[in-house]
């Protein structure tokens, strides 16, 4: 019985999953072009602010490094989650999935704390200088993508809690996880641009 259902599920899968894979790949391509534009903008305007606060004065590493570690490790936990689901271990999937979501959430909260400091202590805003304009737009664009990812994960968590996520969905979740890996990879580029090169 279960073997029959499984073969049915795999029989219909290839065409649909190929579409999903190509669709996600195209989305990642076009999103890369979007991020690249903001990264190039950041690089172009690095060191061109006419007045402070300048990056050297305001950038602090502890929070952002902790955030980065959380976000990067969420890429590993999401792989573990999808693998667990592919092997039919739904409970383990839920654990890793929720963990991934919490790590993403930590990134959001951590960045909020960082931004609060920047805005209140250093009075760095979108309008203070070019550094502010480029910093908030680039990091903010990435943050918007993390937010979207966390919302989608919340949706899938809810479905999982109602028992709607089963083994046959592993492939779809894998395709979703590409988006998350992409968001992580973009963060590495953003980090190198803003916190390493830009300082």
């Amino acid at each position, binding site marked *: 019985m279960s073997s029959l259902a499984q073969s049915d599920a795999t029989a219909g899968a290839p*065409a649909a999953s*190929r*579409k999903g894979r*190509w*669709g996600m790949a*195209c*989305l990642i*391509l*076009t*999103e890369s*072009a*979007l991020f690249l*534009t*903001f990264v190039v*903008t950041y690089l*172009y*305007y690095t060191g*061109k*602010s*006419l007045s402070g606060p300048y990056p050297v004065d305001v950038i602090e590493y502890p929070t952002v490094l902790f955030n980065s570690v959380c976000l990067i490790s969420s890429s590993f936990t999401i792989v573990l989650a999808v693998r667990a689901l592919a092997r039919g271990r739904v409970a383990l999937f839920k654990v890793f999935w929720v963990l991934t979501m919490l790590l993403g959430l930590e990134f959001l909260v951590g960045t909020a704390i960082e931004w609060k400091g920047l805005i209140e202590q250093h009075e760095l805003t*979108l*309008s203070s*200088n*070019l550094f*502010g*304009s*480029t910093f908030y*737009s680039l990091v903010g664009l990435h943050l918007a993508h993390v937010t979207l990812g966390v919302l989608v994960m919340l949706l899938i968590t809810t479905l999982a809690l109602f028992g709607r996520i089963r083994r046959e969905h592993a492939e779809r979740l894998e395709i979703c996880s590409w988006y998350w890996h992409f968001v992580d990879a973009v963060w590495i580029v953003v980090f190198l641009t803003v916190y390493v090169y830009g300082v």
Partner: protein
Amino acid sequence: MASSDITPDASPPRSPFMDWARGWMTTVDHKRLGVMYISSALLFFVVGGLEASAMRAQLSWSQLDLMEPGTFNTLFTMHGTTMVFLVGMPMLFGFANYLIPLMIGSRDLAFPRLNAVGFWIFFFSGCLLYYSSVGGEALYGLAGMPDVGWFAYAPLTAINYSPGNGPDYWLLFVLVGGIGSLATALNVVVTVATMRCEGMTPLRMPLLVWMISVACGLVLIAMPPLSAASIMMLFDRHFGSHFFDTQGGGSAVFWQHLFWFFGHPEVYILVLPGFAIVSEIIPVFSRKAIFGYPMMVAASVCIGVVAMGVWVHHMFTVGLTAGMNSFFAASTMIIAVPTGIKIFNWIGTMYGGRLHLKMPMLCCVAFLFQFLCAGLTGIMLAIAPFDFQLSDSYFVVAHFHFVLIGGLLFAIFGGLYYWFPKATGRMLGEKLGRWHFWLFLIGFNVTFGFMHIPGAMGMPRRIYTYQADRGWEIWNVISSAGVVLQAAGVCCLLVNIIRSARKGAVAGDDPWDAWTLEWATTSPPPEYNFEKPPKVHSRRPLWDLKHPDDTDGAYE
């Protein structure tokens, strides 16, 4: 049937009109969406054409005062924006939508609902743009519509130089419309990659599928920089950021880079579908297989790649370095090579063929001549010192209208005559078609052919009027006279479409004796396209079917 008629139905009977409207508004069928894309594009084409006619009337003689100078600015902004984003791109997506699933033998696009989303986003983005005429501060008599040119250069778009909401409508329109374009482009690429029927290997796909895929790939890469730039501009205008604010250290030239990094690939996004249509029509009406198929594919991909490295030729007069200007002058000349290969291949296809000069073919022959002229003036403008002299003059206006009307629009006309029978089951009238063709052809060449001359004499673009002693009047009045012929031509086309859709000669499945898969199904095709998934063995599946003794596979 009878049993369903007497089934008790709680809901009140609906009018046939509501059913009809509901059918179109809720459809996810690629053929209906294709027709909707093309019809909306034609609607906006008429609007954009009226704007152009008003401008030509104002410029037809020196010191005319038919409208306010501000209105003139609004007109050229809206004309450019409309023709590029609301006519050219939806035409691309319309033809892509209608033809690609039929040509590769699939049931629909990869994501049908996303397809509908893409269409409605496009349609409402157009409504948003035109809503600017009544929305915002326009109600209080201030300039509501954008009047900053279709490329919206900084710093004119800064909040202190353009205080109204016009640029905001333009920026939001670009942002929203961009999302719709991305959705549909993604859909097309995924469809071509994953939904081809059995035997349809990449090198057996019709050239239209190849070229439109390349154009959609370009949309995916070139559109986001414009979206990013619009976001930055909106931030500059409303949140006080400094991206393009030179007083805050920003750079107005950077906007130009971002805009043209989108803007030049956009030219190829628009014109590749034109090439695509021509590549389908010329072989059928020459009764020969396309000459140099692999070279055509390679040239298309090559154009797609090089198109992303030529944008600075729009900025030669900005004052960039000599090295930069030389590099982009060279890359601009290089992109003429694959384009030239295509022209030779089309001529090679016609050479020695048995030409049938029906309406679709007639449009393609006109395309060849006019696109060649556009290419030649393009090479002239690629030479940076020559461009210094003529940039921002009517010579440039004439050049790119030869590209977009002489090239793209004539190809679209050809496509309309060629596939109208497939979409409606009826032929588009040949006699009225000839009137349309010759009126428009003559009108177009009168308007834009003669427009090169005042441009070379130094008449700048985007001027509201000019002085009497420049010697430009005679050329301008000739240009304006051509508009009358073009408008008459377009009227013939519209009347022809409306009349033929009802009373045209019945077409049958394959009126042109063509070779690609869309002609294998009925006209109009059923909702499921093909009864059985087709199987192809060569680039011309219908030729194989009609000539089983001499199939194509042996020669490929």
